């Protein structure tokens, strides 16, 4: 049994994959808890697609994809925030416009350059086994940054999400908090991209959080349970993909989906918790 657990990690690339997967398993459910409750799932999906040009430009320059995708995520977050708050554009419209435009730009750029070390498929579905030491270090720093910001502003984010007008009257800067949240979301998505790719980011972002909110009534406790679900999905997914030679990103997403189904069944037949708002 011990051998089954330890065997994959005789390889350095698997150790790096485990490390980054764990980071993702922690930050996705935390951010996801806010995303689910604020009804911003589409925003997460769209931001993942919209950082595509940043990844391609970094690859063209021979840099780590992080160095292109992080600034791109911040640009996208600020642009979406600007459209929503200053131009009175609806969230769906702002996100849809940025998503389609920038993702297309990334694909066209990739097609024009042609000869890149990474394929479109790797970007779309993730390339966890190709994570370098630099990528690992950057993902660790970004994860710590996101966690520190979330712990520090936890109550402010809850207040502004729960009672937007009351929080502004109480003196909170709702605009700055929203921009900060979007930037943190963008950074988390960038870290997650390496693990599951552009297409499946939203799966890890919202599925563990939605599953935990089904069975745990209180927001903060649901967030903690979401971390357990997220870590279980990513780490178990890594093992399954190693032993059965399957793509890791889809396996991780599938496991989190299975957890969601279990929670739905539990909630339906065994729990008194009413979670119709999540459906």
């Amino acid at each position: 049994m011990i051998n089954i657990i330890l065997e994959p990690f005789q390889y350095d690339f698997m150790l790096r994959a485990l490390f980054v997967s764990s980071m993702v398993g922690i930050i996705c459910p935390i951010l996801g808890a806010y995303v689910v409750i604020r009804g911003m799932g589409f925003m997460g999906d769209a931001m993942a697609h919209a950082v595509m040009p940043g990844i391609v430009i970094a690859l063209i320059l021979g840099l780590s994809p992080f160095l292109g995708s992080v600034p791109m995520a911040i640009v996208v977050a600020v642009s979406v925030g600007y459209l929503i708050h200053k131009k009175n554009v609806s969230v769906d419209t702002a996100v849809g416009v940025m998503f389609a435009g920038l993702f297309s730009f990334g694909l066209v750029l990739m097609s024009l350059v042609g000869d890149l070390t990474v394929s479109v498929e790797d970007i779309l579905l993730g390339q966890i086994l190709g994570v370098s030491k630099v990528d690992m270090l950057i993902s660790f720093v970004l994860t710590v940054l996101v966690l520190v910001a979330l712990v520090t502003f936890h109550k402010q984010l809850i207040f502004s999400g729960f009672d937007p007008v009351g929080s502004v009257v109480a003196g909170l800067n709702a605009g700055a908090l929203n921009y900060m949240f979007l930037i943190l979301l963008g950074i988390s998505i960038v870290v997650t991209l390496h693990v599951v790719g552009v297409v499946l980011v939203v799966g890890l972002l919202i599925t563990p959080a939605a599953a935990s909110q089904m069975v745990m009534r209180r927001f903060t406790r649901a967030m903690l349970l979401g971390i357990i679900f997220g870590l279980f999905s990513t780490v178990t997914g890594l093992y399954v993909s190693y032993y059965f030679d399957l793509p890791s990103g889809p396996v991780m997403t599938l496991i989190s989906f299975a957890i969601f189904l279990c929670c739905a069944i539990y909630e339906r037949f065994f729990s008194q918790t009413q979670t119709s708002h999540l459906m």
Partner: protein
Amino acid sequence: MKNQGKAPELDVEDRCLKCGLNCICVIRAVGACVEFNGNLVLDDVTFSVGKGVLSALVGPNAGGKSTLFNAIAGIQDIVHGSIFVNGRSPKDSKGSISYIPQRENVNWRFSLTGQEVVDLGLVKNNSLLGFSRKASLEKVRSALERVDMWDYKDQLISEMSGGQRQRVFIARALCQEANILLLDEAFSGVDVASQFGLIDMLRELKDQGKTILIATHDLNTLADRFDEVICLNRHVCAQGSPDTAFTPAVLEELYGSHPGMFLDHSLGHHHD
């Protein structure tokens, strides 16, 4: 034309327009106008509210009540006129006002307990880490006890009755230590018995010096519990005691051609 933030400082002791030397004016609007896309939502609004007064802001839906609250709270610019809160511009008065939202403006999907909601009252930009755990708990406990909700501290607010929710929000306002409470549609979704309990509790708070303004589209049974009413339909139609303010002409101006239904509409006396 926007003049918020440029308003001259007034003496806090500046007297209420209505009461002369008898009370301190806490909220004063003089010719305040708010415009959305070229339409005047508030037109030349002039009124004042004294310290320790319980007032109802009465008017039809879309009559500008929430907009006026937002202007008083400093989150809605006015295009003409002035609003003063404690003698200062609204934007300089943040912290002295606590806003209790109408039901539709709250995201009930946040599964927060009564205690957690009240604890939000201690959150401010300039104190990221807030009070110590013990001091916070004491403040929250004291606020919940004042509104008789300590026993429900662990219940989710989304599962409380309308009246219990309002009490929890009032406890949050107490934690904020604001001297002005703005309650937007406070009686919406609250049964009649709870409305009376709520208003009696608010009267206790106003006796302790809080200035309370409640927006409602329908006073019905509660009119006589207020010190005064401000009738608003884009402009102030009347301000005064509930007995004198609701004249047929004012009701006509507020609600159109069927004002009779609002006359004498009290418990057990439905204008028969």
